């Protein structure tokens, strides 16, 4: 495509592409912070690493207003029904990020109290490894999620 649109020219796209492009820069996260990974989340969310550059700067503390459920930290068996309920309350379209080793696979806690990965109770789109993950890898995970949003179907009805 030419950089300068001539008078009378037009540009075509697919609806899914346009919706994906719009949605990937408008991520409202619900931070479900249960453990020490929360420190890295705070670090990446504040000015130095600044995920606002990716349109994800504004956390919403109500699941009704959120697009992305970010599960940050260890999820115990006791809190698992609450996590599932938060997920069920979020409106479509919605995505889930498992942030850190504990949320992804249970981390070092192979014991009676810990859920061995949140993917046993909610579907996960992006797994971010690390204990805790560095901000760079979180940004990488966020960009992977943006890529996924941009390339998926966006049914309007």
């Amino acid at each position, binding site marked *: 495509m030419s950089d300068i649109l001539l008078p009378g020219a037009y540009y075509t796209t697919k609806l899914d592409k346009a919706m994906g492009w719009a949605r990937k820069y408008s991520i409202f996260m619900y931070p479900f912070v249960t453990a020490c990974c929360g420190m890295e989340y705070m670090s990446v969310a504040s000015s130095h690493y600044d995920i606002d550059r990716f349109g994800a700067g504004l956390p919403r503390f109500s699941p009704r207003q959120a697009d992305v459920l970010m599960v940050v930290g260890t999820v115990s068996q*006791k809190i698992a029904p609450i996590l599932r309920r938060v997920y*069920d309350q979020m409106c*479509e379209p919605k995505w889930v990020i498992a942030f850190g080793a504990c949320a992804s696979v249970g981390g070092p806690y192979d*014991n*009676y109290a*810990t859920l061995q990965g949140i993917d*046993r109770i909610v579907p996960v789109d992006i797994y971010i490894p690390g204990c805790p993950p560095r901000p760079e890898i979180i940004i990488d995970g966020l960009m992977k999620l943006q890529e996924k949003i941009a390339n998926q179907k966006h049914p309007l009805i």
Partner: protein
Amino acid sequence: MTPEELASQLVTDFPELNLTSRVDKGHAVVDVSTDRLVALMTAMKERPEYGFAMLMDLTAVDWFEQRDIRFDLVYHLYSVEHNHRLRVKVQVGEIQHAPSLTKLWPIADWFEREVWDLYGIRFDGHPNLKRIMMYEEFKGHPLRKDYPYNKTQPLIEESWPVRNLQIHMKEAGKIHRP
């Protein structure tokens, strides 16, 4: 008092309690039986030369098959006034109860609930002996040696990979989209 003085003075002060004491890793340790525990602890708190105003910790040890009397209760006392510490050990059998110390130190309430939750040792006279860490639906006591260390008791359905949620939610009537 130094740990050595504390250990020797306890035995001479309370001959009727039949204590044995020693110094272990710089701490005075005293062994007492369950029926004399309250008498000892009351004296520890109320006699000014001891002045143990603070119950720092209460925990338990499960010796399982290594010993006839299965559990040890371990009380850690600290005196703010004299800056000395004391460890009190009580042997408790599997079906035996221990006396509650909630009347002496209110913090014993939560400590005893924790020990009941994780080890299953009952405390007589506790006002509210229910689980504090695990959920009410949990069966058994997870820090006992005969509890499988990674046996979980999920509260909701778990599956891996997670069941197709669209189908699941349609069944539950949660989405009405065709």
